[in-house]
């Protein structure tokens, strides 16, 4: 998976504001060097799966895989779509190790940049997956919605991350999940996006 580097989003995540932030050339160079350094540790991997809906209630969405997501907001988001794309992505363990090393070496400046790059790249991986599935869906006159929904957001409990983890077999791309439903390595995400008719 080759995710385009979301430069603008990385800077925004770091608090850069076009209108107000003053950045000298040295800071810019250092920041870009740190971003390049971060990228050399990031190995984006992901998994995506189209799943048909078997049933939809006001407060739940049931999938053809027999999994059920309990969430009124998700049900509303899905609307009358008959299929969803379930996705997961990770920036890998090496970048987390690099962040830890920077923090231990009192280099929080670079550590925070590495952290921002990894977060944005992981998010970018989900965009990439939507684009990828859209290529295939084009022939079926369908497309994936740009907006998506994640476990832990709104009323979709984080415990549903366990369901997505199993459904996508995320262990095969090196992820694990804690008892409190957190994905390891830290820079990993899951999401659901609706598939709509064009």
């Amino acid at each position, binding site marked *: *998976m*080759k995710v*385009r580097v979301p430069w603008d989003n990385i*800077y925004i995540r*770091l*608090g*850069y*504001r076009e209108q*107000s*932030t*003053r*950045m*000298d050339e*040295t*800071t810019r160079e*250092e*920041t870009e060097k*740190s971003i*390049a*350094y971060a990228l*050399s*540790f990031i*190995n984006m*991997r992901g998994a995506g799966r189209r799943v048909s809906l078997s049933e939809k209630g006001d407060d739940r969405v049931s999938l053809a895989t027999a999994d059920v997501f309990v969430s009124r907001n998700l049900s509303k988001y899905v609307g009358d779509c008959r299929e969803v794309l379930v996705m997961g992505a990770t920036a890998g363990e*090496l970048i987390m190790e690099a*962040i830890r090393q920077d*923090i231990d070496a*009192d*280099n*929080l*400046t670079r*550590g*925070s*940049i590495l*952290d*921002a790059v990894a977060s944005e790249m992981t998010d970018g991986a989900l965009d*990439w997956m939507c*684009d*990828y599935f859209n*290529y*295939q869906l*084009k*022939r*079926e*006159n369908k497309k994936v919605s740009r907006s998506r929904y994640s476990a*832990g957001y709104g009323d979709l*409990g*984080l415990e549903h991350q366990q369901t997505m983890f199993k459904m996508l077999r995320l262990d*095969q791309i090196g992820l694990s999940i*804690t*008892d*409190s*439903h*957190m994905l*390891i390595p*830290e820079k990993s995400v899951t999401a659901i996006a609706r598939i709509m*008719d*064009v």
Partner: protein
Amino acid sequence: MKIQELINERVVVLDGAMGTELQARGMPSGVNPESWCTEHPHIVRGIHEAYLEAGADIIYSCTFGGNRLKLSQYGFSDTAEINRKLATIAREACRGRGLVAGDIGPTGHFIEPFGDLGFDEAVEIFREQIGGLLAGGVDLFIIETMMDIQEARAALIAVRELTDIFTMVTMTYEQDGLTLNGTDPVAAVVTLQSLGADAVGCNCSTGPIEMKALIEAMKPCATVPVVAKPNAGMPELIDGHTVFPMKPERYAARMKDLVHAGGNLVGGCCGTTPEHIKILKGVLAAEQSQPPHRRAISAVSSPRKALIFSGNRPVTLIGERINPTGKKQLQGELRRGRMTCIQNMVGEQTREGADLLDINVGVAGIDQEQTMAQVVKLLATTSDLPIVIDSTNLGAIERALRLYPGRVLLNSISGEREKMDQFLPVAAKYGAMFILLPLDDSGVPDSAEGRIDIIGQVFEGAETFGFTKEDIVVDGLVMALSSNPGAPGETLKVVEWCSSEFGSLTVLGLSNVSFGMPDRTWLNAAFLAMAMSKGVSMVIANPAAQELMDIKVAADALLKRDRDASRYIARFSQSTRGASGAAQKSVMSPMEAVTAAIMEGNREDIETLLTRAVASGVTADSLLHECMIPAITEVGELFDRREYFLPQLLAGAETMKRGVALLDPYLREENRETEKKGSILMATVKGDIHDIGKNIVCLMLDNHGFNVIDLGKDVSAERIVEEIKKSRPFLVGLSALMTTTMVQMREIIEGARDEGIDCSFMIGGAVVNEGYASSIGAHYAKDGVDAVRVAGSLRQNE
């Protein structure tokens, strides 16, 4: 007429869209197009005939999704038969009016190393489809709409393992000029033509206007004809439907630009109709086709980028570090199948300026084939640099060449009979370039003349497999000065002969020259400069060797291999920038310089500046209270106003921290120890592993004189309460990033109150806010600067 004759004669016209035409003629949404077409042969035949009547020279069989994986999604298993039937329908429609291209599209799965579908399995899946198409009598193949170069390779290898008929490969590109997987058009051309594609290009992607830049990029490096099959303009969403807006006349007019850019075979993709093709045929009648601009090219590629060895580019540096010889840690990791060390070496060499990465996994007792595959897959997914496969193990070489999604440089093939017999066919099959080692079964000739004889013999053998001089890099064979003082001179003669007479690229493994000598750097660097003056093209070296890299950059500039000496200027102005910054500070007063260092986050110079300030008579107490604290406060305010962003805030804070540590002994001497404002206990709550925000807050509080006790992340309520009782802080800071973990905050505060603890609590994190904080009896801090403010105000009110 045969396809090659057609291409030599004129611009070849391909057909237009099939999918949108099928839909227009009644194919319902949601069905499998291939199966539907076998049940409605008259409809698909009608579309083929319409394109032939419009003037298409080549029609594509309706088999784009005719592979086992796609068909099985709809419950079909007779892949070969479906393909045969659809190829036959196209064949029948032609009746001598054109040629049939067997259409092969993507499987919809990612192939290793980018996905979980095994490469050999993918090849097998395509072979099944190709078998059916051949049985149906196709004249050529088109592998199209590929967004993954590895999938295009798998399909092309599948064709080549079954037949040598003409095969075109077209990839699909995003608006930024790269495939979705990040391959640029030049890399695609270099990879695919070397692997045996007879024509390369792009389809779908964009309209003809946007596709022009892609064709312009491909043409100069293409040794085969170029294909362009764009959509009828960029898709627009009108009333919820995707519409391709370009009318046939406008489309055909813009297609002329693609022919002028170098397109040899042109047609239409999504949204184009027989009418588009009819007008296109008319417009192109007067156009001349440009043959390929070159017959061969010295170039390698990674899955994303190509490296073209043109004469005036800087000497290519092959990073030598991924080689276990003499590296115990790497040997150990390779034995255990771990890749961390290699990943680090890739990152370091890339940052130091390597152009290519040499890969050698020669460790005794390991399965080299498997290890090589593992390393190659890692590099394919994590590095943009092309690779050099450095091995004498035929199995490992073949596995690497088959798996790597780019064009590889093989290191090496010598004049030894067995090596030539075994390695040349494998390198030829996968289109690799190779390093020619001028030694034979009698060993390494001492003289340049002896080596030149072997070069001739190996090249003659290579030519029979279709290699050209552009595919070869001659190793000058560097021997140790310590064992033969004349050896370096003979090597340089080989380099000079190759550059000026033979006409091939050359490479040297530099460090051999200094083997057994003291201070080897100088011999290596001097030898490099001498070899560069003889025209050497590449060197295998460690890019972290500063002296060597300095000499290389300087010599590149002197030999006009560095346009406008821009690399030289960039390298050496960079190294003096720090010095000039320090010089600038030397004109400021010591206190001004320290203030500036904190404001600028100058961690490198702060200790020197403070030492100078103390030596000039400024007291540590004045430095701390009159410059450093006001400066870091100002940094915080700038961050608050968004004039600084996070890295500037943290750089300032880290500079401050270093400075305070340096001043500490001076303050003791002045009997003015850094006074602590009180203790703050910090923790990220149980179940939460996200703690970078908490770490930032700790740094900021520490800088402002608070005694910070950091318990880390994923800390239980019980432990936090215990620690409060033990260290009695005036404030406890808690962070959480998830809605599921923020509830812990309430539990901790209630647990503390139950134990009679009355200290203050401050919370922060992405999911909490002021309202939540007050609902659980805590204060809220939105970031590190705010946390300092909250802590300061609580301390004052105590």
